[in-house]
């Protein structure tokens, strides 16, 4: 039972990410230069991402993992996010005087875990991926040890996260009891009508719902996002979320989810999540918290597409392709935008993250025109304005919902978009139309650091590219073998 060479090549990205993580920790005593470590970590993230090039479309490790376009897409997504987060963290670590090597190593480990999540075809493998990314995340959340908020964030995340993991594990146990297997293909081939299987999958849904911050499992999100170091928050909002959605989509497209039960489960989950996220964001005065609530809302929008997926097989004529594509496109655009937005928040925050309230953003339009313009672009993308990535993301989710004749869900999504417009707009209004009260604090940031500016530029260009010329990415997410392999 030795693994074949092809299997190892398939998981080459994970091997590279982990390898670079270990190397980073080993290098730390010798390499005192922070920039050198940053560069090294970035090379690691990029190399792992590019290693997907060698993988062949097949299932590996006796069906435990699946190498296909779908997993490659998510590898690219999380690899890109890791790359950008590492670049954005460079100036943050310097400002906060934190050790860089472990930080980058943890990000790479977490990314490897997300990679496993994206290609897992078997529930225990998925569990390993989930734990890899979660445990690294717990540490990262508390990385700013001298800050009480950061420690609170870590403890909260750890306690609630372990609880959710327990749900996930118990779910796996029940599914195994019901179907005699933890392999998704084999689960799919057994009778799906049994209540035990349904209960098991529900528990899995609860566990994963926690990770993607779907209401009512979202309570941890604002506190953890607020307390964690901002680059880490950027990672949380983008990487693990996308990877967990990848697993969720794989599970619920492989098993026979096209039943009323799952339809209503996702329908309710989507609606509750959208409303909780948007209504919660309305009253926030801290921009970081506001973005945390907005990421709950966006999980809700993504779940709308899941509700569409579960109706697809009831009605084969409509075809499932657009709904999958909607999820993938949405997550890509959303992740890049969130990384960009949190990078700006991190830079505006200054030392000790002390300037993150809306008042601190007042007058940003005159003080830092570039940062304000980029932030406006990101907020408009989250809002769903045309010519940004967010618009097409929302558009495709919308289209999937209407394709499946979920008019009411589409209408509720519309209402939520309008609510969302209010609080995103409020940030823009504050940046451009309010003047800052009093003088600028001495330690407030004057401009973006070059590395962060690079991240912001990349994210902004990507946002516009996806909003203006989505053809290329659409071609990938709509390609036939992606869909067939995801099934």
């Amino acid at each position, binding site marked *: 039972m030795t693994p074949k060479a092809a299997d190892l090549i398939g998981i080459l990205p994970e091997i590279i990410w982990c390898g670079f993580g270990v190397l980073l920790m080993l290098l730390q005593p010798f390499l005192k230069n922070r920039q050198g470590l940053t560069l090294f970590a970035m090379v690691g993230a990029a190399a792992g991402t590019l290693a997907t090039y060698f993988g062949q479309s097949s299932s590996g490790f006796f069906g435990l993992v699946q190498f296909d376009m779908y997993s490659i897409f998510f590898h690219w997504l999380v690899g890109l996010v890791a790359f950008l987060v590492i670049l954005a963290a460079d100036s943050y670590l310097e400002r906060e005087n934190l050790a860089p090597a472990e930080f980058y190593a943890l990000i790479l480990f977490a990314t490897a875990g997300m990679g496993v999540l994206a290609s897992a075809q078997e529930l225990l493998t998925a569990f390993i991926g989930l734990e890899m990314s979660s445990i690294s995340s717990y540490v990262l959340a508390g990385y700013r040890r001298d800050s009480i908020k950061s420690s609170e964030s870590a403890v909260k995340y750890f306690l609630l996260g372990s609880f959710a993991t327990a749900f996930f594990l118990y779910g796996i146990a029940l599914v195994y009891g019901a179907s005699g297997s933890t392999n998704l293909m084999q689960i799919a081939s057994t009778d799906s009508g049994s209540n035990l299987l349904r209960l098991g999958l529900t528990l899995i849904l609860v566990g994963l719902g926690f990770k993607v911050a779907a209401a009512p499992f979202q309570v941890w999100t604002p506190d953890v996002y607020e307390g964690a170091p901002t680059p880490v928050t950027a990672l949380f909002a983008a990487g693990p979320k996308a990877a967990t959605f990848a697993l969720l989509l794989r599970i619920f497209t492989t098993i026979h989810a096209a039943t009323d039960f799952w339809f209503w489960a996702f329908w309710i989950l989507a609606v509750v999540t959208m409303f909780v996220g948007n209504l919660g964001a309305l009253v926030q005065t801290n921009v970081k918290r506001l973005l945390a609530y907005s990421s709950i809302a966006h999980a809700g929008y993504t779940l709308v597409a899941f509700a569409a997926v579960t109706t697809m097989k009831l009605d084969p004529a409509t075809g499932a392709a*657009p709904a999958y*594509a909607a999820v993938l496109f949405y997550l890509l655009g959303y992740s890049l935008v969130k990384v960009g937005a949190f990078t700006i928040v991190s830079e505006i925050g200054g030392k000790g993250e002390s300037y993150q309230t809306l008042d601190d953003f007042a007058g940003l339009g*005159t003080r830092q025109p570039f940062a304000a313009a980029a932030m406006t672009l990101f907020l*408009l993308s989250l809002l769903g*304005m*045309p*010519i940004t990535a967010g618009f097409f993301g929302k*558009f495709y989710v*919308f*289209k999937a919902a*209407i*394709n499946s004749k979920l*008019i009411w869900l*589409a*209408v509720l999504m*519309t*209402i939520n*978009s*309008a609510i969302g*417009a*209010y609080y995103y*707009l*409020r940030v823009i*209004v504050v940046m*451009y*139309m*309010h003047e800052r009260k009093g003088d600028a604090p001495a330690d407030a940031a004057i401009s973006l650091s070059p590395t962060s500016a690079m991240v912001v530029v990349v994210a902004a260009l990507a946002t516009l590219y996806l909003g203006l010329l*989505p*053809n290329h990415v*659409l*071609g990938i997410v*709509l390609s036939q073998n992606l869909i067939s392999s995801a099934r």
Partner: protein
Amino acid sequence: MEFSGHLLSILVFFPAIGALALLFLRSEDEYWIRRLTFVVSVVEFIFSLSLLRVVAIDAPGYALTEYKAWISSPPINYHLGVDGISMFLVILTTFLTPICVLASWKGVHHRIKEFHVMLLLLEVGIIGVFLALDLFVFFLFWEVMLIPMAFLIGIWGHDRRIYAAVKFFIYTMAGSAFMLVGILWLYNLTGTLDLPAIQLTLQGVAFHLAPRTEMLLFLSFFVAFAIKVPLFPLHTWLPDAHVEAPTAGSIILAGVLLKMGTYGMIRFCLPLFPEASHRAAPYVAVLAIIGIIYGALVALVQPNLKKLVAYSSVSHLGFVVLGIFTFHTISMQGAVYQMLAHGISTGALFFLVGMLYDRRHTFEISEYGGLATPMPKYAAFFLFVALSSMGLPMLNGFVGEYLILLGTYQWHWGWASWAATGVILSACYLLWSYQRVFFGEVVHDKNRNLTDIDSREKWGLIVFAVITLWMGIGSPYITHRVAGPVDWVIEQTKSKYAEEASKPAVLPQPAPMASETHQDSQTRTVSR
């Protein structure tokens, strides 16, 4: 005409290039920023005038289309076209933009560069809306235009500007979200987003739209447009936005933005959903009449001059909506005419009110009185514009209102008579406010030494006056060009309606447009 192949794209994006050029100027270079913007907008105006040669008299259908594939799935294409209706609205837009630059010459003091960039970007959005023939592209411009407008109100407006900007944004955003649902639904039904192709599909013999579906689709579009117009119960954003906006913002808002709503009704609601339009028409007409009378009555009691003009817009746009939903060729021509006339007169009124604000920094009517003594030229121009706005024969306002009432009368005399009271009321509020502002003794000392109009303002006003007069006398020049497309729209609303009633299968008239693109879209529809 070698450049005419891309004339429409040039029209849409030339201001954007101008805005880009502005970004390279230093923000202290006020002098050059204003002049460059003015030159760009005047050149744009001249470009738009060249449309007059392209669109033939009495010819329905789109001249000068542009077509380029853009996004593969769903098939979204960059499809532009111009006909008699959109041509004049584009010209109105390009005409009002340089006026806006002039109007803000003294009124805007801070962030001058950003102001002019926003103004030019707004022009891009508006012209895009009028020229787009792909539902998606239309929606895109419709949304994109919101941002510069909200910024114009929110940054350079008056005291309650932020409230007004947010209200404006959310209102329109909510409306357009429903439109997006409608667009996607329509796409699901027809498999295309191309307006002429959808038209063709909907009229196909084999195609049957359930009445309830059609009504919902109609409403999803109509609500978005009605908010923009604004139609009576949805008008509450307008007074705030108008009063708080800077002069330039008000001119564009009243002059062109409101017309995007009525334009949408003519272009989308009526031809795409004829039966639903017919069924909804009585209700819409009643709302329009309520709007006419209500707007006029509120304008009558306004202590605030700018708000008065704002409410007069609610009243006048009520006429336009009424003219559209009577399905009569005369009244619809009148509606299009009224759109243009209102753009000119109300643009001029806001220009004038803005001048007063530049001098005294208040809109309260009670702060003025006897202004005719210190500012005789100003008073004369104001009277001229006010007369045109209330519909004095020989001036532009008369033609539109007259045609609308004439057409409405043939459909329903009661509505026409109710609507006619709006004409009388408009004379009341305009003349009464004129009397309070300009006649009598100068009661406030501050008003004694007000300077009369300077040459910049004078030339702006002279241009307005000439156009007002010309539109009043030379109206056939416009109506002839508008008649073709209007008749076509009326034809669309009739054909299937009659068909349902009597004869079962008459091959519907294909949507007229430039032959090449037409076939293109047709084959695409068929192949799907």
